[in-house]
């Protein structure tokens, strides 16, 4: 009995101590609770957000704001959660909604108007929402099928060059893609086929693709780093698919991250399968630190950040004249004629297409 009693006392005591601990850890260094005039500005983003430490530190020093970053799942989940919590948001700025999900954010009133300094420098083709300025374009990239160069030369097979090629018998059981309902490149690839074959034709195309043995996995990490035979991760995991839906910037990444660096990229891009994505940032509607948020958006469009971004997130800047690393132009030049789609058309059809795609391909 004596021991039991001690245990009880200990447990209760421990509880109180940790309670106090939780309480204090909540109070310190957290700008979300306290009202206006906070020196902390909070950026909500997806897991792929990255920036060089010194670039961020320079912004903090110059602006006087401390930046707190909340990475909240993959791109789609982060957007959805931001929409659900828009009345009492987790932060001040959201970065990472792309053109495929833009309408969901705008229709739900996720953002308030703010015209970023430097928005005049954005290349015209990336500008949207020009009358209200609720979002600011930050980066762009192309979703494209990548191929494993070694596989195709070993098998004396010409790599495919277009969507049409992918359904040919020569490429049977070679392609792995992502679930269009859970993955941003997966959705991009689906929209690419819809742009190419039209509202009526894309389903037929996917039926052929399915018959030709396309494999679907949930996320990009799994597809690219486990199933794809051409990536460093995929080789290690004995991936056996030489074609994967990824990005045009994946080949340079394979070079930059390899040690020692190879003279040429081990993977290539299937030119005729690209779909253009643009990522936006916006000031959240009920941001507690709107002033800080505005400064942060200006920063995202600044020359320093735009030049720093490619090597961190493997995307292209949207600012005209921004420097693109030479590895990008050398190992993975931007696609010449990517498929594109009007945001309004994406908004009107996306959910229906994803639904039909799920029934058609997964079930």
């Amino acid at each position, binding site marked *: 009995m004596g021991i*039991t009693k001690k*245990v*009880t006392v200990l*447990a209760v005591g*421990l*509880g109180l101590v*940790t*309670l106090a*601990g*939780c*309480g204090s*850890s*909540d109070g310190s260094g957290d700008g*979300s*609770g306290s009202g206006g005039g906070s020196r902390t500005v909070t950026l909500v983003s997806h*897991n792929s957000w*990255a920036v060089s*430490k010194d670039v961020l530190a320079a912004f903090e020093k110059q602006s006087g704001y401390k930046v*707190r*970053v*909340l*990475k*909240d*799942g*993959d791109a*789609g*989940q982060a957007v*959805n*959660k931001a*929409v*659900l*919590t828009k*009345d*009492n948001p*987790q932060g001040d700025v959201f970065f990472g909604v792309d053109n495929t999900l833009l309408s*969901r954010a705008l229709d739900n009133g996720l953002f308030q108007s703010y015209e970023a300094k430097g928005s005049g420098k954005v290349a015209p083709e990336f500008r949207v929402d020009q009358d209200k300025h609720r979002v600011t374009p930050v980066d762009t990239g192309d979703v494209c099928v990548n191929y494993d160069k070694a596989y195709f030369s070993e098998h004396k097979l010409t790599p495919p060059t277009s969507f049409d090629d992918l359904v040919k018998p020569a490429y049977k059981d070679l392609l792995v893609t992502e*679930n269009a*309902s*859970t993955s941003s490149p997966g959705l991009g690839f689906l929209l690419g086929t819809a742009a190419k074959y039209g509202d009526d034709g894309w389903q037929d195309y996917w039926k052929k693709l399915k018959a030709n043995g396309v494999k*679907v*996995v*949930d*996320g990009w*990490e*799994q597809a*690219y*780093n*486990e199933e794809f035979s051409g990536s460093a*991760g995929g080789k*290690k*995991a*004995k991936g056996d698919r030489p074609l994967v839906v990824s990005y045009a910037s994946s080949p340079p990444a394979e070079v930059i991250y390899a040690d020692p660096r190879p003279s040429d990229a081990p993977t290539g891009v299937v030119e005729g399968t690209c779909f253009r994505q643009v990522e936006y940032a916006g000031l959240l509607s009920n941001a507690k630190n709107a002033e800080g948020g505005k400064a942060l958006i200006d920063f995202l469009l600044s020359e320093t950040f735009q030049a720093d971004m490619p090597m961190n997130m493997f995307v292209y800047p949207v600012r005209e004249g921004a420097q693109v690393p030479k590895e990008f132009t050398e190992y993975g030049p931007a696609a010449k004629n990517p498929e594109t789609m009007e945001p309004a058309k994406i908004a009107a059809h996306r*959910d229906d297409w*994803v*639904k039909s795609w*799920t*029934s058609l391909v*997964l*079930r």
Partner: protein
Amino acid sequence: MDLARPQVKGRRTRGAAARLGLVAVPVAFFAVFFAYPVAAIVARGLHVDGVWRFGRLWDVLGQSDIRHVLWFTTWQALASTALTLLIALPGAYVFARFDFPGKQVLRAVVTVPFVLPTVVVGTAFLALVGRGGLLDELWGVRLDTTVWAILLAHVFFNYAVVVRTVGGLWAQLDPRQEEAARMLGASRWTAWRTVTLPALGPAVAAAALMVFLFTFTSFGVVQILGGPAFSTLEVEIYRQTSEIFDLSTAAVLTIVQFAAVGSILAVHAWTVRRRESTLRLVDAARTARRPRGAGQWALLAGVLAVIAVLLLLPLAVLVRRSLDAPRFGYYRALTESDGGVFLVAPIEAIGNSLQYAVVATLIAVLVGGPAAAALSRRDAGRFVRGFDALLMLPLGVSAVTVGFGFLISLDEPPLDLRSSWILVPLAQALVGVPFVVRTMLPVLRAVDDRLREAAAVLGASPWRVWREIDLPMVRRALLIAAGFAFAVSLGEFGATVFIARPDNPTLPVAVARLLGRAGDLNYGQAMALSTVLMVVCAVALLVLERLRTDRTGEF
């Protein structure tokens, strides 16, 4: 007689008041932190532009892929339940009737999977049957993204439910009844069928229903092992809400799951009541003996082999994988902040988890304790018994729904908890309460009412009666209940994944995030972190096993 009447009436009113007092806290807690958030998220999906759209119910149920999900959810749950019973019933028998060295430890060991977070279970099976897993390396066999991985993981997870629920009762059945039947000329089979089976029946049914409930609402296991082609209702609710953002479909599916779980629980409550009736029970210690003869030894060996392959092997593979890097590399990596996956070192998730779990346990005990006390009263009426089933609902209602419900409903004054850390323990306590109630209830029921009455007659206040009579008797049960609440809070994933702040992940959330990233180091760290979590849960459980006296409880 006439004189006695007003007195009885007076006592009844007092009883009713006391009952109301005890029920008030749990009712308020469940109304605010369960019913309201769930109703809010369902309403968000079905109440569009000021109009209720219940017609969506038929639209959604009419879709072929939703029907596919419903069908898969049901059949995999049925198959999982059947497979679990098939594999675990011999185990229940062996634990009930045989005496062998190490039995107590082994009983605790087989319970470890049950308190393990589903994320860890999924990870362990991935290490066993996934790409580059043990079976893949040995024979090139891969079962991930097949239904077999899901079924086996479900057996792994629920083995203990059957062994504990059925075995606990089996051990207390008087074997002499069966022997008597045999002396009267019945064959071994007839004796078992006519004497033991009817006595065990309700316990088997209760266990089967619990397994069915857990597998029907399976989330982490299906999510990690199933791949995009397999989806249970729970996973589909998650996908519809979090990925496709079709809140009305999610709301409809929530309602469907709610109805299904409600019916399962109603049947469960009924079998429990039947089980509590008229069985002659004896001390479990007297019914077990050493196995005799080749048949019994073979049975024991078979059960031990199954436990080794199905329960211990996945855990061993998990530990083994976590040690793949030289000099505990994966464990050491946990202490480094890479600025990549998390902003903090993964090891901090351990501290977060422990803090959250302690607070969640306190809440679960403070809510579940009074609820159990109210339920244990002999004058508890139909209303209170119904309340019993209600308390179980959080076990079966989509944790995802609860998590999202928290996010959208607890975000304005007077309940502005959105950015408060307390949100996580509150959600975790919801799953802890049913365990507290189920553990405390049998013990509280066993307290002789006459003791309480005698104390009351001698002038003790209700508080004093509770302190002097009930508390000393239930302190042990309270600790066990707290231990279970602690373990399930530690492992809670579905709700926490939404409401844990990105910079304050819990252990299971951190494991899931590491698994979602590419690279050896991330995978290894996920294995290491899972191992840490497993060890914490196992230690908690082994401590409980030493405290446990009464074995009729369900968990």
